[in-house]
């Protein structure tokens, strides 16, 4: 039963990724211009154009090229960058690690923060703490991520405190975590974008659970309040919150783009912006697929966690 449900989600995820790859590939066919001439620039003699076309398989029909491109995604051959002339995979190698580090740090901070704030707010229902948390999360949830980032830069890097670097300082080629201070502001910015949604959802479900019969029962039989919250209420409230957490973590895959640009952080988001600016199609295709894959995988993991933690499905097995 559980295995069947998970297998179905898995098949569905593969189907979604295939459909996304169709969109990503065939959208770029609308693009006017000739990639071979773009790569060669001034030196575009007919022979060289023909050679590049043969090398990049540009003279094949679109369907064949799609299949070759799709096959390349699995073997790590992501095509050729028009801007640099080199393979896309070489361009992206280190950047993927850098982006995953940033996303991972943001997730590790924002999830406990959001859950804790939500619980705290629910326990102080109607009080001053509760309404303060509700208002702050509502305000933060509205702000575009770069607005939060610039506010943090103005406070901690340029005017009031001047204690943290405003942009990434590590020279190209060195891993980003060699200078931990440069990771602080981008991580906090992402965490501040993501945590409010988690906190709001946590508060709502926690309030429902706290009103339920079994929590009252636990309190009446004299279970310490701490234990009531952590052992009785929290496990029931975390289910719906897990969905929101998944949506937020998946959002990070796209949200990281603007933040990397703002902090000049050497990840795939920054590479995507550069590629769009130079219309470097194969890089844009590769990164779009990477981000979509990340998004689908996070959602899949959340679904599996949801299936495994749902007692109704578990006991039906």
């Amino acid at each position, binding site marked *: 039963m559980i295995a069947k449900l998970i297998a179905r989600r898995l098949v569905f995820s593969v189907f979604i990724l295939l459909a996304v790859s169709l*969109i*990503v590939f065939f*959208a770029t066919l609308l693009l006017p211009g000739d990639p071979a001439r773009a790569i060669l620039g001034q030196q575009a003699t007919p022979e060289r154009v023909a050679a590049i076309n043969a090398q990049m398989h540009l003279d094949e029909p679109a369907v064949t090229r799609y299949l070759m491109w799709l096959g390349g995604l699995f073997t790590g051959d992501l095509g050729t960058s028009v801007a640099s002339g080199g393979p896309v995979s070489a361009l992206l190698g280190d950047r993927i690690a850098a982006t995953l580090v940033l996303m991972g740090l943001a997730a590790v901070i924002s999830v406990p923060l959001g859950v804790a704030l939500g619980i705290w707010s629910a326990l102080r229902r109607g009080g001053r703490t509760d309404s303060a948390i509700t208002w702050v999360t*509502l305000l933060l949830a509205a702000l575009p*991520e770069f607005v939060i980032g610039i*506010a943090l830069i103005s406070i901690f890097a340029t005017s009031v405190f001047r204690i943290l670097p405003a942009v990434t300082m590590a020279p190209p080629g060195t891993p980003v975590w060699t200078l931990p201070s440069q990771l602080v502001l981008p991580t906090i910015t992402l965490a501040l974008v993501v945590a409010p949604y988690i906190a709001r959802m946590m508060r709502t479900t926690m309030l429902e659970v706290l009103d339920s019969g079994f929590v009252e029962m636990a309190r009446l039989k004299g279970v310490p309040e701490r234990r009531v919250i952590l052992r009785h209420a929290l496990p029931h409230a975390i289910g719906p919150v897990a969905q929101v957490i998944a949506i937020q973590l998946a959002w990070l895959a796209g949200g990281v783009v603007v933040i990397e640009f703002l902090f000049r952080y050497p990840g795939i988001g920054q590479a995507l912006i550069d590629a769009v*600016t130079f219309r470097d199609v194969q890089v844009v295709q590769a990164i779009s697929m990477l981000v979509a894959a990340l998004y689908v995988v996070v959602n899949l993991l959340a679904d599996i966690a949801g299936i495994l933690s749902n007692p109704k499905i578990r006991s039906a097995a």
Partner: protein
Amino acid sequence: MNTRTDMNAQDPARDRAQNAAADPAKESASAHVSAVRRVWALREGRTGIILTGLVLLISVFGPLLAQPLTGFGPTEFADKPFQDSGIFGTDDLGRSVAARFLAGGLRLLCYSVLATALGLALGALLGIFAAYAGGVVDQIIMRINDVLLAIPQLVFALLAITVLGTHGWVLVTVIGITHAPRVARVARAATLGVIGEDYIRAAEMYAVPRWRIVVQEIAPNITGPLSVEAGLRLTYSIGTIASLSFLGLGMQPPVADWGLMINENRIALSVQPWGVLLPVAAIAVLTIGTNLLADAIARATANTNVEA
């Protein structure tokens, strides 16, 4: 309309005048007026309307006032770059920050409203259609939805901009399209909620054409969730379009635009911060305003359901 409620009491002209200014969809139905009054009665609603209205006033009248107030047009050169001359100094090319700030909101606002309207119309249509048709059609529409939802909004927009360029219609269309699947989910769920009601059954029994049932019976009864969506989508539209301009991939120079101003002036944040802080503040106030408004609409319409 059949959403008429009990609040038909005479409303003070003061409230109506203030609400009409902030409410783009002007309908004379009394049901609508009472909904606006309920939103105004909430603290979030009032704050949201005031904040949104404030930025609305700046962006609509700003372009007219830029020249007379600052003495310079938004693309005119006033001084050397990053000086303190004038009210808020000069920007990276020596243009007046104040003039560009006043002129920089209208286009962002127009694009956001258009993108929201497009996404709302497209999504509502798809969602109602999926729910009402049911079966295979429903399945197909919702699966296509899932595929579109797997591409983050900004990445989808960047893909479109790579292919089609940074034209205004591209921004509006692509952001509208990325809203559509999200709106469609809400519209579908709301439609499924009303579709079993007796008045729909009755209309079907009288052989009212299906499109008229959709327009006359279903649409008026899902305006609550859809107006909450409208507020949320407007907030996200503003955020996304401002983000794209900030990335240098939305509005193009020499246009005066808040997102673009932040991009142009952020290298001098510590020397001449006004060129960044003014547009950042405006975008922040605007998105907070529309989000509070969406929250208030959600509460106001949820309350009606309880009363009914």
